[in-house]
């Protein structure tokens, strides 16, 4: 481990070494800022569990058009981002795959829901093609014969979160980022300004600016004044990893999503044969236990969608914590506390939003100007004090 003495001072200290923290640190270092990252196990976080589907269009929800714009901006940057990262990390492949996504429905109720999503796509002018069930199965012959219809979104792709993390960590180190394998236990504030952090190793790191990228732990950092950050709640997702043996390849050629009786499920086939199935959505605190029910529901719905997958080896079950902000959108840029910058609360879109978050936050760190694209996502959009308490009946 590289040790920074308590008197050394970084320009930027990033708390949290997941996809967001590492990408911000890498970009900041590229801008000539002396940058440090603190995380007990850098390269971890929700990105290690996530399937890595880059699907701003197929995951669109009503009322989330600003988030769509940010997601599409990030998606457009992904190819260049991945190529640059591979170069900067000494050739680490990120598993970025321009494969497109097909979203299908298995009964007439789910088909109506998908129809509604398609109509919403059309209103917003998004690329999205309606498929009959037979057309969907022509694209993906392993889909169940009962598929009633689908949507093809050619620009929703995928990346491998684990390989992305490995590449980011390597790129950070190559760019001169100091990576401290310790926990930040307290934010240091002097005269109403964030000035650094104290670590579990009792070291003190001073910094011109502190970036909080600690996902669902962000708001729990000691020393953080009240009202600066809303609670970023942990939203558990269980995920399965299967392997497609060579004899079965390609099995699936693009991301497959479905609503199965109202439940969302997705299958992400990697070029290396890994097939990721996700994910549950559970509000169970900081628990990352894999449960029988979680695995059962994923397999049940996946099996209904792609019956042949029960033949595949099941390699891994895991659970991660999405960092959920109150409005599902990330917190980007300066907080109400001078010197403290947020890059957290990405909920189910952390991997997708990594390139754009890194660019926007690094721009702010280097210039003090927050780009227009990030303006709807400033942490100050959450009013700290609410006065809407109503008398109990």
């Amino acid at each position, binding site marked *: 481990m590289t040790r920074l003495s308590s008197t050394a001072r970084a320009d930027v200290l990033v708390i949290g070494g997941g996809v967001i923290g590492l990408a911000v640190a890498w970009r900041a270092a590229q801008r000539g800022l002396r940058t440090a990252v603190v995380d007990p196990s850098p390269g971890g976080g929700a990105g290690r569990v996530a399937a890595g589907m880059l699907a701003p269009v197929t995951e669109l*929800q*009503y*009322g*989330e058009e600003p988030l769509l714009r940010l997601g599409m901006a990030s998606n457009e940057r992904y190819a260049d981002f991945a190529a640059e990262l591979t170069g900067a990390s000494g050739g680490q492949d990120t598993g970025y795959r321009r494969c497109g996504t097909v979203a299908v429905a298995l009964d007439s109720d789910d088909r109506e829901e998908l129809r509604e999503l398609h109509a919403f796509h059309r209103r917003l002018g998004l690329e999205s093609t309606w498929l009959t069930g037979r057309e969907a199965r022509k694209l993906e012959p392993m889909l169940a014969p009962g598929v009633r219809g689908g949507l093809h979104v050619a620009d929703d792709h995928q990346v491998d979160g684990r390989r992305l993390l490995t590449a980011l960590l390597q790129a950070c180190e190559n760019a001169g980022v100091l990576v401290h394998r310790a926990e930040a236990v307290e934010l240091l504030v002097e005269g109403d300004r964030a000035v650094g952090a104290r670590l579990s190793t009792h070291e003190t790191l001073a910094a011109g600016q502190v970036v909080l990228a600690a996902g669902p732990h962000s*708001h*729990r950092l000691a020393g953080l004044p009240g009202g600066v950050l*809303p*609670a*970023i*709640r*942990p939203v558990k997702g269980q995920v399965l990893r299967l392997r497609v043996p060579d004899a079965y390849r390609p099995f699936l050629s693009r991301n497959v999503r479905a609503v199965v*009786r*109202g439940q969302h499920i997705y299958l992400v086939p990697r070029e290396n044969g890994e097939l990721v199935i996700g994910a549950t959505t*559970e*509000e*169970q*605190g*900081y*628990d990352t236990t894999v449960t029988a029910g979680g695995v059962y529901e994923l397999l049940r719905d996946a099996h209904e969608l792609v019956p042949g997958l029960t033949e595949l080896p099941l390699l891994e079950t895991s659970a991660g914590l999405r960092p*959920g902000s*109150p*409005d*599902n959108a990330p917190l980007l840029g300066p907080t109400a506390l001078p010197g403290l910058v947020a890059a957290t609360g990405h909920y189910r879109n952390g991997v997708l939003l990594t390139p754009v978050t890194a660019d926007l936050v690094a721009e702010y760190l280097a210039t003090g100007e927050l780009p227009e694209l990030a303006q709807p996502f400033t942490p100050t959009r959450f009013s700290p004090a*609410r006065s*809407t*308490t*109503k*008398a*109990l*009946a």
Partner: protein
Amino acid sequence: MADDLLTIAGTAFSSRLIMGTGGAPSLEVLERALLASGTELTTVAMRRVDATTQGSVLDVLTRNGIHVLPNTAGCFTAGEAVLTARLAREALGTDWVKLEVIADERTLLPDPIELLDAAETLVDDGFTVLPYTNDDPVLARKLEDVGCAAIMPLGSPIGSGLGIRNPHNFQLIVESAGVPVILDAGAGTASDVALAMELGCAAVMLASAVTRAQDPVLMAEAMRHAAEAGRLAHRAGRIPRRFHAEASSAMAGRADLDTRERPAF
């Protein structure tokens, strides 16, 4: 309507909407929808929430002064439902429970046998039990007999938005019930809520109809007005239905205008 309160087990509410939280696009939208609905009682699935986490749906309810009604969604046996209710009581410090025991995942219809068993056990254990039940007048009466504090019949399956499929059964249930009857499940839009109230329901329980609407906040406001309108109409008393027209003003005693001055056709 301060003079017309909903009373369940001795607790009075001025709102006649009970809200659910499932399906909301985000907590922020959910919060605004709950406020727009005016609800004072909102149900939360105990299998889907952790009471100790900051920033959870429970925080949203607490800071807005909305009572939490834990429910046993996802339970298939009386045993599971009783266990879940007890865990909820421990975690939240309330002995109120919206009891759900589901027969199968395809229909999400209540299992009447397991439901009655669980209701009896929980009432005996000191719970205030609000059971989600079929629109069966006989089962409703038996649930009241074992001591449930309200009866919550379904209008149609959960999340279907098909409204009240058997209004006559609702009238039969309302007619004989000595506890509040609350429409649970099936409402799709405002007219469904108004109809429930006109049929004599004491309140309406809503989740998907609001949380999955294109604009949940606007729909929540519509539902509030619908509940109020339906309740007022119920209290006012509707006119009898007739097959033929009946002029609203009688012909006798009207001014006798001189028809000779009308233009010829």
